[in-house]
């Protein structure tokens, strides 16, 4: 009983001060991130921003230069089998057990999971058009990832981590995956972390977003809040001196005018310059917001 209470107090995922570099180039520069149970975090960032590295480091699949992660209260690098049984991770390019057929792999892996849902496997294999008797090695990368998504969902994990899951799916299957993710989070309290390029997917199911840019997490907040809290402020050239010094991005256009991504203050007000005659404040969709900052 005590053990159960203790377990519940632990966050599914909590990382502190994560740092990593490849060949002298810093990829992660001190990432702090915590996931509440039942939340759906959409991780977004440009190609090469380090999303996969961050995910792998958080799950203990890679030893970071510095920092630590706890998964259900255990050190990510020394997870017990019991903790591992509660996690499912789908990498961008699954490679494991390629000498088995899809069916063999799922039958084999299923034995390790107490909550394995064989009915889900059967029906989803059909819907996602996976031939059960083909070798995994012979499947296309997209089919391979679909099999791995089925594997992950069938284990009914408490923490589901998906690295670019949408890339392998056609629009119908993608919608189906999003539905699974959304309903499991809402009803079974599954905690989900997924990285994606497709911002509209993230806007549908994510409860919060984090934007990985230049090794740091920007704007880690709820999706709704992001849309309401940030906007683009445009100032004509003659007023560019009035631009607030603090902004998430700053771009000068050829005509001398200037665009900034600004944030409401604690009282919900835009920076003062937004009130000047000739200034413009435009609400942005998430996609425009990211482009504005990442460019």
């Amino acid at each position, binding site marked *: 009983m005590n053990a159960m209470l203790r377990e519940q107090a632990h966050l599914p995922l909590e990382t502190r001060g994560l740092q990593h570099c490849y060949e002298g180039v810093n990829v992660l520069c001190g990432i702090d991130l915590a996931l509440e149970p039942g939340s759906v975090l959409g991780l977004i960032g440009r190609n090469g921003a380090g999303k996969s590295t961050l995910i792998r480091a958080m799950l203990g699949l890679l030893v970071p230069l510095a920092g630590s992660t706890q998964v259900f209260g255990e050190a990510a690098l020394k997870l017990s089998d019991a903790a591992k049984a509660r996690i499912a991770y789908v990498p961008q390019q699954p490679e494991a057990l390629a000498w088995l057929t899809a069916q063999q792999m799922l039958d084999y892996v299923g034995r390790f999971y107490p909550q394995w849902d064989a009915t889900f496997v059967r029906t989803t294999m059909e819907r996602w058009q996976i031939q059960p008797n083909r070798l995994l090695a012979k499947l296309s990368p997209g089919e391979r990832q679909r099999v791995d998504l089925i594997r992950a969902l069938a284990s009914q994990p408490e923490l589901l981590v998906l690295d670019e899951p949408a890339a392998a799916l056609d629009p119908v299957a993608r919608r189906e995956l999003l539905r699974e993710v959304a*309903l499991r989070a809402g009803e079974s309290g599954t905690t989900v972390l997924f990285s994606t390029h497709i911002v509209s997917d993230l806007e*549908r199911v994510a409860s919060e977003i984090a934007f990985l840019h230049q090794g740091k997490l920007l704007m880690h907040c709820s999706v709704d809040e992001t*849309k309401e809290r940030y906007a683009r402020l445009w100032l004509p050239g003659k007023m560019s001196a009035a631009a607030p010094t603090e902004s998430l991005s700053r771009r000068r256009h050829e005509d001398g005018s200037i665009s900034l991504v600004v944030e409401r203050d604690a009282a919900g007000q835009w920076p003062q310059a937004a009130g000047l005659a000739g200034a413009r404040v435009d609400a942005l969709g998430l996609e425009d917001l990211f482009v504005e900052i990442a460019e």
Partner: protein
Amino acid sequence: MDASLLIIQPASIEPIYRQIVEQLRRLIAAGQLAPGELLPSVRDVAGFHAINPMTVSRAYGIAESEGLLERQRGKGMVVAATHRTTQTQNQRMALLEPQLQALTRHAGELELPADAVLRRLTKLLGE
């Protein structure tokens, strides 16, 4: 009411929960949803549109606090019995506020004098 009646545009600058509240407001104000009519469950809406159930709950909660919806024991959310007829002019006017704000902003950007805009608006309203 069927979940498919709602239109969700994830890429819109409007957060999804506000899109839902706004549509409920309009459907109810226009009488397309009658008092007592049952709303689809949170699960149905979330499932149909593949959106986070918490977003739907939040929208329903706001609609309930605005008096558009009522929670009925064992049944779910229904359209509240008291609406349009009892809505004051002020309340209906408040529904128009976002559009009026946008209009004012555009007029300012175009540096149009207020009287010219008002003249045109008066003409449109009179038609």
